[in-house]
């Protein structure tokens, strides 16, 4: 299923490798820039998905990480449609990110219209959402695969150098995320990945709290939380943390 660079010219909507060297360099620095005081892993992964999506003319990006029992968890997405694409894969147990995670290899240029046999749960739903082609990249640390990043787009075709760029970006982001520099120095370590997964769980719990308190769905609750965070220029994890900490006081996310 990997037809690398089979099309060029008009059928090709975007090519990562046409992005300027300066822009790419900036991207790589951002992806590695995690040793800052106010590092927030969910924000970092959201930034990463948005930046990778920005490489494509039409493309959205979603990302999942696995826990110690190899259970994948949704972590971040460039927009709502990409989040749904990740959730479909988890719900129905098939899809490009799951394949990339299980094989440790990229899944490239899969035409959704022809992928129903391959992914009976995911492919028809992704096509219905308006996507035409999908790609997925494993998130790797040494020999271990810790998650996957999916790219959902129109008729976007990636060539070999595009694949290299996106995969390298994913690799750099993982190193940044897990702070491997600190790991190599053998200092007092912390389990960054476990912390990352747990902070996503806190967001889901906050969604449930706000959903129940306001009589809305969890998705609507997420929109409330996210909008509140944006309006007040606060981090998503921080707002979610406050919501769960304030239990049993019902949260108020109204304009203020």
């Amino acid at each position, binding site marked *: 299923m990997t037809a690398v660079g089979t099309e060029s010219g008009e059928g090709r909507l975007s090519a990562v490798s046409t992005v300027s060297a300066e822009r790419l360099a900036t991207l790589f620095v951002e992806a590695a820039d995690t040793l800052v005081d106010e590092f927030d892993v969910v924000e970092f992964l959201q930034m990463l998905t948005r930046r990778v999506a920005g490489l494509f003319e039409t493309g959205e990006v979603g990302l999942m990480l696995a826990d110690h029992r190899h259970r994948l968890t949704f972590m971040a997405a460039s927009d709502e449609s990409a989040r749904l694409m990740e959730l479909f894969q988890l719900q129905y147990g098939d899809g490009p990110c799951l394949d990339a995670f299980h094989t440790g290899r990229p899944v490239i240029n899969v035409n959704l219209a022809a992928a129903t046999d391959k992914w009976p749960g995911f492919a028809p739903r992704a096509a219905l959402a308006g996507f035409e082609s999908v790609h997925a990249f494993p998130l790797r640390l040494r020999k271990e695969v810790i998650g996957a990043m999916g790219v959902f787009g129109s008729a976007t075709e990636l060539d070999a150098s595009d694949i290299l760029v996106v995969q390298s970006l994913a690799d750099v982001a993982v190193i940044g995320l897990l702070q491997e520099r600190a790991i190599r120095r053998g200092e007092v370590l912390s389990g960054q990945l476990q912390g990352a997964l747990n902070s996503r*769980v806190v967001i889901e719990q906050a969604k449930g709290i706000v959903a129940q308190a306001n009589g809305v769905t969890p998705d609507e609750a997420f929109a409330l939380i996210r909008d509140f965070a944006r309006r007040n220029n606060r981090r998503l994890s921080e707002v979610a943390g406050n919501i769960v900490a304030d239990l049993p006081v019902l949260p108020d996310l109204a304009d203020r």
Partner: protein
Amino acid sequence: MIVVDDGIIRVARLVADEPARASDRGGVGGVLRRLCTAAERTLSASGVGVSVVGQEGMRGVAAVSEQAYGPIEELQFTLGEGPCLDAFTTRQPVLVPCLANGAMTRWPGYAPALHDLGMRAVFAFPLQVGAARLGALDVFRVEPGPLTDGEFRDALTFADMAVTTLLDGQERAAPGTMADGLDEVTGQRAELFQAQGMVAVQLGISLADALARLRAHAYAEDSALGEVARDVVARRLSFDSGQL
């Protein structure tokens, strides 16, 4: 494509096979002691302890693999510092493969005391589900050196099991039955955490208690935890309508 991981089943079996001792307390305490001893052997540790940190700063040692480790675990609370408390506070595992300079600076009271007792490495794992925090599991070693990848995964799985044991202890008479697959949520686990938040608001209880209630309901109804969570999120099931 769903990969069923047998880690939790294997760990549950290790704990179940661990013989009881006359000194074991009943209920949760006894199960946790066997868990600590099974973890000690599996992780090539010299000692393992579970401490519970409750609301309003209530805290204490719940179980240790060997009685000698009770005071070692307790000392963190006396001094108010240590990897266990840091794992709890930061909500991440704290790994100290070599109890040397860095650790001495970070825990000026606890680290030297631990060193004097012959300990050379300590690893602490938070007992938590998102914002629901119960305590920490501590692994002590007399030899320095990191946990292998496999040991790290096993330690996290022992911590998972300690969480379910503590949760079920609040609701269920016979804890330690988590190998029955009830807690295995396949697919979207996000729904479980959302349901947890919803039930916490429905009943005005903590997130930890809400998860315990969800698990107890699944157990009582003999249904999968994921199904119960889905019903709560879809508002087919509510815990505040007096039906439970």
